[in-house]
């Protein structure tokens, strides 16, 4: 299978190939059907022509027999016949006169036993007259008024007719024998009636085959004689053959002869003549086909261009989009599928640009893990209960600090602080859930579960404390007042998930565990504890550190019947 890089080439070849195949099939079918029809039609006509031949023969036989019967009643011929001494010379000249009346070349008389007396040309001998004798004997035995058949006289095919000579009826005193030749003139006469080429041939074996009469040239007639089939059905046999430059349909029909091998009447009609109208039709089909192929190639090229140009445009735009350029828009002023595709492409590009922008923004607003989970397809409202470690930090007296500082500077300070803290949380696998003013709520173990969330949270808290000390050194160097904070950490089962309305969602956690974390952070403000970081017993246990932390006793927690043991992370 050929492969083409260009769609237009493929469409063009496919269209032209299909069309050409269909047209060629039509042409071949029409041509073959026409030829078969023409042959069948010619065969029918040839069969009718054979009937014309027989009718013509019958007509001439009847005409000659009736005429001969009239002549046989002439007075002088009977007188001549019955003279004491038969005057053959006078009889011959009389027969010549009769032959002139009938315009026939063979006119002979026979005695009552069928023996030849004389013929008009005095050219027949007894040996020639076997067929006449046979016909006379049959007519005599059967009391027929006439008898006739085909036979050869002096090697030429004739139709022989015999009628009795009465003196008076029914006393037969002799017979007339007349014959007309099946010669070239007869063939031409038949051709004038039928418009078919006519040939009479004899002989069934190669060395005896010969042409008796024909309307064809000698060479063509010779060929017809050579091709004559040996065996023939009564209806004859038709064949298609090429003679010279033309094709002919040839019908061989049998011609039974008296005591001889049968002869053949061969009728031919030109297939070319019969096919001439259908040849014109075939030429017209070819012309129309060529025109159709030409027009189809123009249309296919136009259609292919109409498709491939926007497709190439789309491909180019796709490459741009792949390279990150979402600004490209395709303008296709069309209503069809390609137009729809272009619209869809434009929408897709816009969607991609929007999504890119959202992802960018989301990364800034929420933590990368949350953003990635939000952007992944399993975004759903509601949530799941899981064990999460929640870290709460809050700056001390930040509000009062704000009263002494311009807002922009305050915000810059706050952001500087939050930036460092957030970085530490994220370094330890935590997720910034939200900023609440100067407070930070961070999650460990959500949305991505981690086995050691409590330990990570404690480690993050320690580092935050160290980072705050570092920040305070910087602030002191800058001549600003230092900051102080407290951190509360709790581990517990909470509900995590996307919460909010259909149009606006927040990934967060809710539950008593969250409240407890916030409560522990608040406890760091109590001087009695002398602690910056307070964790619940659950967190300490989860982190595997209960013995290494300083117990601070128990506190009652709102909404819980039992008090909760708390511990301080000092170092």
């Amino acid at each position, binding site marked *: 299978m050929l492969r083409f890089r260009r769609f237009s080439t493929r469409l063009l070849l496919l269209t032209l190939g299909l069309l050409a195949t269909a047209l060629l099939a039509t042409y071949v079918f029409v041509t073959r059907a026409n030829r078969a029809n023409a042959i069948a039609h010619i065969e029918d006509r040839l069969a009718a022509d054979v009937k014309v031949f027989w009718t013509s023969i019958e007509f001439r036989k009847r005409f000659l027999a009736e005429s001969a019967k009239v002549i046989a009643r002439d007075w*002088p011929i009977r007188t001549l016949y019955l003279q004491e001494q038969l005057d053959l010379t*006078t009889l011959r000249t009389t027969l*010549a*006169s009769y*032959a*002139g009346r009938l315009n026939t*070349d063979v006119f002979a008389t026979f005695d009552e036993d069928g023996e030849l007396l004389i013929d008009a*040309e005095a050219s027949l001998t007894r040996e020639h007259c076997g067929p006449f004798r046979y016909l006379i004997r049959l007519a005599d035995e059967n009391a027929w008024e006439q008898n006739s058949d085909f036979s050869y006289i002096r090697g030429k095919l004739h139709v022989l007719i015999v009628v009795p000579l009465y003196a008076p009826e029914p006393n037969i005193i002799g017979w007339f024998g007349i014959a007309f030749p099946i010669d070239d003139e007869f063939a031409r006469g038949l051709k004038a009636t039928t418009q078919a080429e006519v040939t009479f041939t004899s002989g069934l074996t190669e060395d005896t085959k010969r042409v008796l009469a024909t309307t064809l040239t000698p060479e063509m007639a010779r060929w017809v004689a050579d091709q004559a089939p040996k065996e023939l059905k009564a209806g004859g046999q038709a064949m298609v053959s090429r003679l010279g430059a033309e094709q002919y349909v040839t019908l061989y029909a049998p011609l039974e002869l008296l005591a001889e091998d049968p002869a053949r009447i061969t009728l031919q009609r030109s297939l070319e003549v019969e096919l001439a109208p259908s040849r014109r039709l075939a030429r017209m089909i070819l012309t129309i086909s060529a025109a159709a192929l030409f027009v189809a190639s123009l249309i296919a090229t136009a259609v292919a261009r109409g498709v491939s140009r926007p497709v190439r445009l789309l491909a180019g735009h796709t490459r741009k989009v792949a390279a990150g350029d979402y600004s490209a828009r395709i303008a296709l002023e069309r209503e069809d599928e390609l137009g729809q595709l272009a619209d869809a492409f434009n929408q897709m590009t816009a969607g991609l640009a929007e999504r890119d922008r959202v992802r960018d923004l989301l990364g800034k607003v929420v933590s990368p893990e949350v953003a990635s989970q939000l952007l992944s397809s399993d975004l759903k409202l509601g949530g799941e209960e899981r064990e999460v470690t929640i870290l709460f930090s809050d700056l001390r007296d930040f509000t009062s600090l704000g009263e002494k500082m311009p807002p922009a500077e305050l915000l810059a300070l706050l952001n500087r602080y939050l930036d460092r803290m957030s970085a530490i949380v994220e370094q330890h696998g935590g997720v910034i859930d939200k900023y609440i003013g100067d407070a930070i709520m961070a999650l460990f173990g959500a949305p991505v579960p981690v086995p050691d969330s409590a330990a990570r949270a404690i480690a993050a808290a320690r580092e935050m404390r160290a980072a705050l000390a570092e920040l305070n050194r910087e602030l002191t160097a800058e001549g600003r007042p230092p900051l102080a904070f407290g951190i509360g950490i709790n581990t517990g089962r909470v509900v995590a998930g996307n919460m909010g309305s259909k149009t606006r969602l927040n990934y967060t956690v809710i539950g008593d565990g969250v409240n407890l974390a916030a409560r522990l952070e608040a406890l760091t403000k109590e001087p009695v504890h002398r602690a910056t970081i307070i964790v619940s017993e659950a967190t300490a246990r989860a982190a595997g550190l209960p013995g290494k932390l300083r117990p601070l006793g128990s506190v009652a927690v709102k909404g819980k019947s039992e008090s909760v043991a708390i511990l301080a992370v000092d170092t």
Partner: protein
Amino acid sequence: MSRLAALLSACLLAAGLGAAPGAWELRFIDQQGEPVPDAVASLVPLDAAAPPAATDRPEIMQEGQQFAPYVTVVQTGSIVVFPNRDTVQHHVYSVSKARRFELPLYMPGKAEAVTFGEPGVVVLGCNIHDWMAAYLVVVPTPWFAKSGASGTAALAAPAGRYRLEIWHPRLGKPLARDITLADRNAPLGYTLTLKPDRRIRRPTDPKSGGYK
């Protein structure tokens, strides 16, 4: 050739009959301007009775399966002999009003004589040879002539008033006019409107197989 010779002899015969000084010449041509042989001219006297017929017996013979001569003129009351100088029998007959007769099949060498007492044209045929035909013109006057191959005929009759009658086998109706003959007369030309020749063609030598 034998027919042409017979015609010539008939011309001479006719000229001999009217062998008188100051013979009157008639010239016959057809519509194509060709000379017309076998045209018969006769002068029937208007003011006196015609002299009686001569006693000689003209012949119309059968030879080579043809009559010869083709056209013969005799005076009323003449006896014509029909000798068969052929090799075959003939059956001569006439069905013309002027003289009906039949000479049934008679052998070569035989001759039959027939008297023609009424004027008119007698067409002769042979019952067994369709192509054989001859004309015998019977006229009530001894002054008659037949044109030869050159289309001329010479009439010789005493001066006086006559009815001139012209006949030819292919002429529709005979032509007739009254004329007065002087001792010397200027030649007279006739243009005859002839019908086509309908004579039957006969087979020639049987061995050649053709027709002439």
